[in-house]
């Protein structure tokens, strides 16, 4: 018997999409039965109360969670989100319901023994409810009490060789697309770089020295499967400098509609028939720079004019491959709308090599220059993008020692309101008005 009636939630058990309600209910029952005899450190009916309070929200159309108090593990500025319910009498199981952010592995690959251990820990010390994963990328362990925090942290670090992720005004858990591990488009090893950066900057991740949050996301190519350009203060996007490699035979297979060469690697094998593949229309005609030609059964790409948008490669992965001189671009400043409106990442470094042998020196230099500036100049709760807006893109170039170039803009300024530095202007700014008046009467 369920502890709380949940008539509204129950209606979410039907329909084909996996029902979180069914899952929660099953978990609640399982916990009630406790066949494994776990010595739960959270109330046994925590999930029932979670369902109950959620039902109440469905009824009221309002949340029933209060502001989180400042809870955490000793010495860390983040990794835990405090949460208390505003109806503790009726739902004592979730009176305190903090989450812990566990730093997910690169590429989100797992061995089951790891996951099972984590589940055991969470059944024992938490609600047994998780998010796999949070939007930033962490494993979210959803709901435990203050007292358990250090215990869980202890087990994670001692028994599982696993640290917490970020929250608060610090470096957030970096995350990546799967990259070279399973993707032929990857221009660098995202998993290796994200792992390196996460370890290199543990201090920044755990001990807030920043004005506000800071996010790294790493995409292996411009397809942006981890959406770095939309939601990371620093976005690392793989790209290449040389030519797209062309397998002319394979191109012709696509043209001949060879079934082993389906358009876009089969992404259109659905219920709609789009007709035979048409190279001219589907590739050449859609190339944003129109830099491709197909003549006498040969494809030609004017690589100097290619912007590496990935379209042609996506459509014909067996025929076209990314170049060999690969690296990454860095874009900066993406963020959600609060306060000044959302921003997308802006291109700061068009190309850098990705070199594990020198500990990615070229990359860490850019990162650290930016942090130095932001920590010096950033106001409380000011994201990097906002600081760039406030002090100007020029300032960013200055502090990173990067030369301005047309690649930095999608178009040059439309207003002529240019600031000059005094030393750029011959004679400087101090002038003698009396001297001037000799030639120009009042």
């Amino acid at each position, binding site marked *: 018997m369920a502890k709380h009636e949940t008539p509204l939630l129950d209606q979410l058990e039907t329909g084909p999409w996996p029902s*979180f309600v069914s899952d929660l209910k099953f978990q609640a029952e399982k916990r009630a039965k406790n066949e494994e005899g776990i010595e739960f450190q959270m109330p046994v009916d925590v999930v029932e109360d979670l369902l109950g309070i959620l039902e109440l929200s469905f009824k009221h159309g309002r949340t029933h969670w209060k502001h989180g108090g400042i809870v955490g593990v000793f010495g860390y500025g983040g990794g835990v989100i405090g949460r208390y319910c505003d109806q503790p009498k009726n739902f004592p199981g979730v009176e305190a319901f903090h989450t812990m952010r566990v730093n997910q592995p690169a590429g989100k690959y797992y061995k*089951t023994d790891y996951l099972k251990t984590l589940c055991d820990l969470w059944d024992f010390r938490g609600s047994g409810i998780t998010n796999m994963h949070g939007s930033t990328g962490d494993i979210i362990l959803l709901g435990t009490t203050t007292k358990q925090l250090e215990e869980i942290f202890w087990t994670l670090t001692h028994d599982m060789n696993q640290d917490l992720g970020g929250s608060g005004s610090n470096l957030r858990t970096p995350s990546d697309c799967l990259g070279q591990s399973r993707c032929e488009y990857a221009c660098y090893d995202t998993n290796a770089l994200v792992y390196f950066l996460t370890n290199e900057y543990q201090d920044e991740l755990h001990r807030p020295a920043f004005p506000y949050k800071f996010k790294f996301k790493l995409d292996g190519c411009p397809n942006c499967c981890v959406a770095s350009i939309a939601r990371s203060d620093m976005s690392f996007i793989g790209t290449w400098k040389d030519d797209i490699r062309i397998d002319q035979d394979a191109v012709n297979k696509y043209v001949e509609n060879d079934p082993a060469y389906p358009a876009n690697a089969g992404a259109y094998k659905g219920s709609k028939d789009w007709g035979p593949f048409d190279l001219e229309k589907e590739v050449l005609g859609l190339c944003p720079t129109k830099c491709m030609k197909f003549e006498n059964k040969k494809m030609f790409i004017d690589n100097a004019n290619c912007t590496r948008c990935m379209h042609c490669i996506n459509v014909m992965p*067996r025929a076209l491959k990314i170049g060999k001189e690969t690296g990454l671009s860095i874009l900066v400043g993406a963020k959600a709308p609060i306060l000044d409106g959302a921003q997308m990442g802006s291109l700061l470094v068009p190309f850098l090599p990705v070199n594990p042998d020198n500990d990615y020196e070229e990359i860490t230099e850019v990162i650290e220059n930016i942090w130095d500036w932001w920590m010096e100049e950033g106001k409380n709760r000011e994201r990097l993008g906002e600081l760039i807006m406030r002090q100007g893109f020029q300032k960013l170039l200055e502090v990173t020692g990067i030369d301005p170039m047309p690649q930095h803009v999608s178009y040059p300024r439309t207003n002529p309101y240019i600031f000059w530095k005094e030393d750029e202007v011959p004679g400087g700014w101090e002038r003698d008005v009396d001297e001037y008046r000799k030639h120009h009467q009042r």
Partner: protein
Amino acid sequence: MAFISTGYNPEKPMENRITDIGPRDYNEFYPPVIAKNKGKWSHHEILAPGVLVHVADSGDEVYTVRVGGARLMSTSLINEICDIADKHCDGYVRFTTRNNVEFMVDAKDKLEPLKNDLASRKFAGGSFKFPIGGTGAGITNIIHTQGWIHCHTPATDASGTVKAAMDVLFSDFQDMRLPAQLRVSMACCLNMCGAVHCSDIAILGYHRKPPMLDHEYLDKVCEIPLAVSACPTAAIKPAKIKLDNGKEVKSVDVKNERCMYCGNCYTMCPSMPLADTEGDGIVLMAGGKVSNRISDPKFSKVVVAFLPNEMPRWPSMTDAIQRMVEAYAKGANKYERLGDWAERIGWEKFFEVCELDFTHHLIDDFRQQAYMSWRQSAQFKF
């Protein structure tokens, strides 16, 4: 419920403490075929919705079956995932950046048993546990946030709206009939933890009433200067308030006409709650994208200014979403993302073919750049 200690001693927190060890090394978690062929993949193919093969230069192949799932997940379900991975995949499994689960096998003959196993598992209520799909020119899982399950500022629920939406979009999760991939995202307040601002379709929780002021407690609970400076429209001023009991307290005053209900003050100060049954609801945005393919990444646009919270299935919301998806399916060219389609036909036609109302709320009036969105052209469609 006896407290069991790990050995942690709160008196001596530094004793035997381990910190700053970061995440587990990904190398431990790669399936062998991945470890072997990393960086040497030749190409891939989507064999059917949710089923991919990647072929390495070595000739090795890895077959991936992608399944959808609520990312709000119990340990029971994770354990079930582990069981499947143990049974079919030598104990390896991965999650995607959109909260799908991927099971990988290294030979074609392992594929059918895996698929059958996955497809057969259902929850007691009848929904699939592991529906196969989410690839290619279709709709994949909805990125979302906490909603009423955990956060203090949501204007709607996350898991609930997502379940409702995915149920109506389900056939497109298991199909690839659309002109291009269509990404739906969800965030339960303007903080936009789902970063929905660049999604083909975005569901956004939205308040419509200025904060209530809990004057009696405000100064005790909040730092007034922080609350004041939190407001993007400078609607909040410090104020002295006389309570009903005659006592005068320090508090704040909110100029309601200047407020656009962002909730940033509430983030800084719990004595300024916004939530309201009738005030809160949903904004729909559309036409954003993230990839650099063909066109630049772009922001989503607000296309429905408000829909009420209709628990538990938000029918007005799912209807509007379905209308957009169907109009897009019908009207867009192959490879054309929703936003590119809307721009090509013109937003005036978008509203027409999606049967959405255009209201004054959809005209930008935030900051000076608003005027860049007005039509500065004599070109338009009647």
